[in-house]
């Protein structure tokens, strides 16, 4: 099964996927932005400021999901010692950091008109800030530790320790009194968001996921080339 992620075997596929995503991305972006900024209705309480949700919520989801994937792959790597998984986690981390930062910044821009403050040390926001720190530690471990094996080990430990923070972020709105409302969209059970807002939200999520796939594939390709260049005489 792990042979499926062998860089030499999927390198050609990466190029094809990059070209495919590039060809469809702008169509999806235009449709999603039209829904988010024009076609979706304003909220009866928050008015048009609710449109910030269409970038804030998908960004937060991607930030959380990226770290969960990194942690999961780090655990797998600890058990099965698959070197290629390090390349994958290393390629995902900057994407996760970008979207966690975007969730914090857009959240701040949403907080000012809604709560009357740019920032509050509320459980959800603070735990998102902790997630940013874990991402930075993970990335700096790779940048600052020259021995690759040691860097991989340290970053894997950071990812596994950081996993504790994921349920804290998810359930912070239930465990503590926070400014954030409880989840409106549930994977199990019925969601409390109207379809006129759910559609643009899912479209924006799709567009941002396409963007993530594009960046991931380019970063992964860069990592493969870096490794191949290092071992060029042994190829």
């Amino acid at each position: 099964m792990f042979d499926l992620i062998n860089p030499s075997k999927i390198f050609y596929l990466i190029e094809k996927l990059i070209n495919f995503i590039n060809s469809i991305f702008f169509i999806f972006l235009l449709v999603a932005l039209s829904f988010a900024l024009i076609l979706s209705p304003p909220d009866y309480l928050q008015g048009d400021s609710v449109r910030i949700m269409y970038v804030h919520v998908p960004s937060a989801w991607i930030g959380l999901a990226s770290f969960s994937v990194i942690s999961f792959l780090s655990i797998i790597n600890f058990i099965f010692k698959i070197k290629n998984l390090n390349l994958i986690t290393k390629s995902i981390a900057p994407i996760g950091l970008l979207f966690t930062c975007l969730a914090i910044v857009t959240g701040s821009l949403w907080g000012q008109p809604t709560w009357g403050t740019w920032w509050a040390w509320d459980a959800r926001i603070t735990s998102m800030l902790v997630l940013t720190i874990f991402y930075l530690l993970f990335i700096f471990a790779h940048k600052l530790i020259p021995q690759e094996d040691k860097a991989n080990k340290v970053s894997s430990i950071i990812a596994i320790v950081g996993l504790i923070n994921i349920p804290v972020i998810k359930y912070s709105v239930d465990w503590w009194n926070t400014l954030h409302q409880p989840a409106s969209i549930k994977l199990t059970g019925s969601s409390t968001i109207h379809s006129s807002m759910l559609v643009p939200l899912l479209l924006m999520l799709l567009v941002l996921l396409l963007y993530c796939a594009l960046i991931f594939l380019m970063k992964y390709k860069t990592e493969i080339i870096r490794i191949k260049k290092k071992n060029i005489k042994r190829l």
Partner: protein
Amino acid sequence: MIENFINMNGYGLFVWLSFAVTVTACTFVYYKTYKTLKKYEKDFAKELQKLSGQQRKLVLEKSKVATQVLASYNKSI
């Protein structure tokens, strides 16, 4: 109508700033990632050029990745 769309009933600054920050950050990361990829492709092609003719031929025969990186680099120059 356009004025209403830009103003967003008084929330225009926050809404447009949110989307602008997202688009700018995503564009910047895309550009930086693309540039890094192209730099690595170029460096890889240079390393290949440094090898002797026979070694290069052997590498290109054995490694599909090397062939594809070289093809991609040649396409971009």
